[in-house]
């Protein structure tokens, strides 16, 4: 396998006059959890379908696990397990019988892995119930079990946390980290940004089919606006004293005495400077702390607030 498990170069997909994916170029590193984020309808699933050979691109090249898609799709898929859009099964068959159907397509080694996969996702106790009795969260987990049948090097999971309750989310997060620790690569798309921030190593943000940001979670979050918050008795007066000082950007005062101060880079010196400025002007300091931007805030900044959560 190459150092990059997925390589997309200038990939585009059009549906008539609509450009669903627009000139996306990105290399997804191997052995990490990569998250693909974007508002609903921004082209995330379309891109995943093209990577898996389920849809054809109009332009660009796609390489998955070192194989060109669509020219070498079968070789690529031998290394991949996936969930696309939502996990679909034969509802009239049991969870185990469903996996047996898919295992037949992969071969005897996959059949031998069925119980292990069911156990891995915590469904072994319900394996002999028909899938129509499963909750959405259980079907998601069964989808992950199916994706593991061929012992893939790369898992591509489209909105895998849909339908999971908080406990299920925590379990799923641990499962993803286990996959990465085992040396697998994980590519997920999700709109549950808080969860992505906890489980992903790298993130790309897509909007209107175009990739607008790419990097590690820390890089992306730290690249956002850095702020300091202070609360005092007279925010308006405090703002006048602080505004225009070196390293200080926009200062916003609210009616509750709160000051939000945009800074180039949060530092102890700047915090000290703000505290001293308030103190020197006889303004009490009720609170003073840096504001750490979340991935969700960064996402909203980058997509101009266009998100369907």
């Amino acid at each position, binding site marked *: 396998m190459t150092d990059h498990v997925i390589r997309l170069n200038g990939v585009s997909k059009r549906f008539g006059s609509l450009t669903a994916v627009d000139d996306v170029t990105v290399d997804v590193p191997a052995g990490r959890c990569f998250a693909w984020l974007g508002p609903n309808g921004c082209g995330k699933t379309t891109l995943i379908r093209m990577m898996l*050979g389920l849809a054809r691109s109009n332009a660009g090249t796609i390489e998955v696990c070192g194989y060109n898609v669509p020219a070498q799709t079968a070789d690529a*898929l031998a290394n991949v397990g*996936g969930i696309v*859009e939502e996990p679909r099964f034969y509802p009239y*068959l049991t969870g185990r019988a469903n996996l*047996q159907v898919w295992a037949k397509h992969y071969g005897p080694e996959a059949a031998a892995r069925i119980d292990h996969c069911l156990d891995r996702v915590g469904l072994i106790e319900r394996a002999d119930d028909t899938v129509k009795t499963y909750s959405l969260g259980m079907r998601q987990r069964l989808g992950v079990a*199916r994706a593991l049948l061929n012992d893939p090097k790369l898992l591509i999971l489209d909105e895998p946390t849909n339908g999971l309750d908080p406990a299920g989310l925590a379990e799923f997060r641990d499962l993803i980290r286990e996959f990465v620790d085992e040396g697998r690569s994980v590519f997920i798309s999700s709109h549950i940004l808080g969860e992505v921030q906890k489980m992903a190593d790298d993130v790309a943000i897509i909007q209107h089919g175009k990739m607008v940001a790419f990097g590690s979670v820390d890089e992306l979050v730290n690249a956002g606006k850095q702020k300091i918050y202070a609360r005092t008795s007279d925010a308006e007066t405090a703002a006048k004293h602080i505004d225009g000082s070196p390293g200080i950007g926009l200062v916003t005062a609210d009616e509750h005495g709160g000051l939000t101060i945009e800074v180039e880079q949060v530092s102890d010196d700047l915090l000290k400077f703000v505290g001293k400025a308030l103190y020197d002007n006889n303004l009490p300091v009720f609170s003073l702390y840096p504001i750490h931007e979340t991935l969700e805030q960064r996402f909203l900044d980058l997509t101009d607030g266009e998100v369907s959560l």
Partner: protein
Amino acid sequence: MIDLLPAEFKRQIGRKGSFYGSMVWVGLFGLGVLIWAIVSSTSTGDVAVESGTGLITFAVILAAIVVGATAGSYDVAEGTMRYLVLTGRPRWQLVIVRVLALPVTVTLIALPAIGLTLLASSIAGGVAPSGTEVFDLFYSPLMSGLLYGILSLAIGMFLKSNGVAIAVAVVLNFAGLLIAGLIYEFVSRDLANGFFPIVASVVIEREATTGADETLSLGTSIVILIVWLVALVGASLGRVQRAEY
């Protein structure tokens, strides 16, 4: 690809509504023949088999249309087709395995009714059915089921809804005969003789059909039917190869 057959059987037979529903539907006709043999003082073994053949063939055609159309459309309609494609199996195998499994499914659907008819024949007594009549009791429903099942499967492959696939298959199968009649009357008798329902009926009945001034031989019908089946399966393969899931 043969290794995929058990999984395909599991899918086709696992759809209990269409599978067992069809089996009960066809079985009712066999049961009718059995009841007739028991209660009628004029019943004879040969008539029981002859009647059963016609009734079961009719019932199996309808059942095969439902099962075949569903086998063709189900995975696309339910969103499971993309996961079958994700296994990396060549798409053509996903089509051919359905075609191969369908005759077995149709046979399983028809066998109870055929069994009931044979039981009726033995109960009725009198003139026993000939070997040819007994052969037809198996051949006619199973061949009908196979032919109309494949036709419906091909139709189902082009549609994304099970209900629509079944409805379209039913209409096309029965309208086909009407269209063939219209073409026969107003366009070309040779062209009409090439229509699926016409050649299928010749092969099912194993008798040449004689129109007003021409005859469609069994051999010609078999050749034309094979062309039809190859075209239908080929169209399905083309559809699945091109489709985006």
